[in-house]
């Protein structure tokens, strides 16, 4: 054996998925440039959970970090997937919307401030139902208000993935970044099985789940922009690239004629083959693994 030691990359690689929401958000920023806003010490909790005997969380499961990424102003808003499935309640939704709106306000007067949404979420918190749903509608509105002025980047790393109403927030973002482990869809497999039967979707079929909702599929079919490894340094670099990029001339969710035609061309007589769909829809050669 020669003296030069070869350290396999997986030994030095730092997993991003193993980090909690707070550490994930912090890891995206230039060293020493960030601080948390309305964090746990401010104790702004859900007023609705204790009424139902459910322990709240001091930050209501939403972490807002402001600072610089690649030298440019940015705000990261992370949902903590381990608390109530990362679901949106009155307070967590308001934190996300307010942070987006403040980024818009700054951007409109010349201080372009990108927003990164770290979405590990099942969608609306059922224990807050209509305030959660209303909050999701407001998040979508606020993403759309910021998007013309600064990049809005959705990052989905797993293991919860991004489901429910918050998948629309991903859908209207400037960019969507996913790992292979991550999933993105409106309805999760259990919900489909429950509502439409096991023949429609067998939620125990893991291969099927990732074939339809997984990061590789979403990037492959052109509904997400970048597939990244579970590596904190690489994810940081990918996000930095999007924060610094020029604004897009148009956004995927505006391409109604293109996608309307694609839907019209679908053969619905059977289930749709995901690999086949990738071939039909992905006209790009870029968007691969970073």
């Amino acid at each position, binding site marked *: 054996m020669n003296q030069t030691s070869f350290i396999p990359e997986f030994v030095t690689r730092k997993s991003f998925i193993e980090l909690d929401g707070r550490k994930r958000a912090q890891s995206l920023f230039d060293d020493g440039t960030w601080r948390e806003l309305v964090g*746990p010490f401010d104790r702004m909790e859900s007023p609705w959970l204790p009424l139902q005997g459910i322990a709240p969380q001091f930050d209501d499961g939403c972490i807002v970090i402001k600072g610089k990424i690649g030298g440019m102003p940015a705000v990261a808003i992370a949902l903590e997937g381990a608390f109530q499935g990362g679901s949106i309640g009155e307070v967590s939704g308001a934190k996300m919307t307010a942070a987006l709106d403040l980024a818009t306000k700054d951007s409109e007067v010349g201080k372009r401030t990108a927003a990164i949404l770290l979405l590990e979420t099942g969608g609306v918190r059922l224990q807050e139902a209509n305030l959660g749903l209303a909050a999701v509608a407001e998040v979508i509105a606020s993403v759309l208000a910021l998007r013309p002025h600064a990049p809005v980047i959705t990052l989905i790393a797993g293991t919860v993935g991004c489901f429910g109403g918050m998948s629309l927030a991903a859908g209207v973002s400037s960019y969507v970044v996913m790992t292979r482990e991550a999933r993105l869809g409106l309805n999760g497999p259990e919900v489909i099985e429950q509502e439409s039967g096991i023949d429609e979707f067998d939620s125990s079929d893991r291969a099927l789940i990732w074939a339809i909702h997984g990061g590789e599929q979403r990037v492959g079919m052109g509904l997400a922009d970048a597939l990244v490894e579970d590596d904190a340094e690489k994810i940081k670099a990918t996000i930095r690239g999007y924060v610094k990029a020029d604004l897009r001339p148009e956004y995927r969710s505006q391409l109604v004629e293109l996608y309307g035609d694609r839907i019209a061309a679908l053969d619905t007589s059977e289930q749709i083959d995901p690999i086949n769909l990738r071939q039909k829809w992905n006209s790009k050669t870029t968007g691969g693994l970073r």
Partner: protein
Amino acid sequence: MEKIDFDYPAAKRRITKKAHVGVVGSGDMEVLMEPAQSKGAHVSITTSVDGFQDSWKAVFDRFFSKFDGAVRIQINDAGATPGSVLLRLEQAVEVINQ
């Protein structure tokens, strides 16, 4: 859901830092540890699992038998075991001792 409070007046050592540790996931808890406003330490627990007052007291009696900081401790708990609780408290102490 229960709210449980304890006081440890003998814990008088002045503390200057604060710590936040943990996530309120199933079987887990979070803790805020800060300098106390008054002399002695004060603990407030909000827990979704009822009926474990004695268990909580035992954990904190044990914790304050070794720790003498005048801290205010606040906990949101979703069913952490005594072992997990002590672990979280120790993690918080590490941060305030840095």
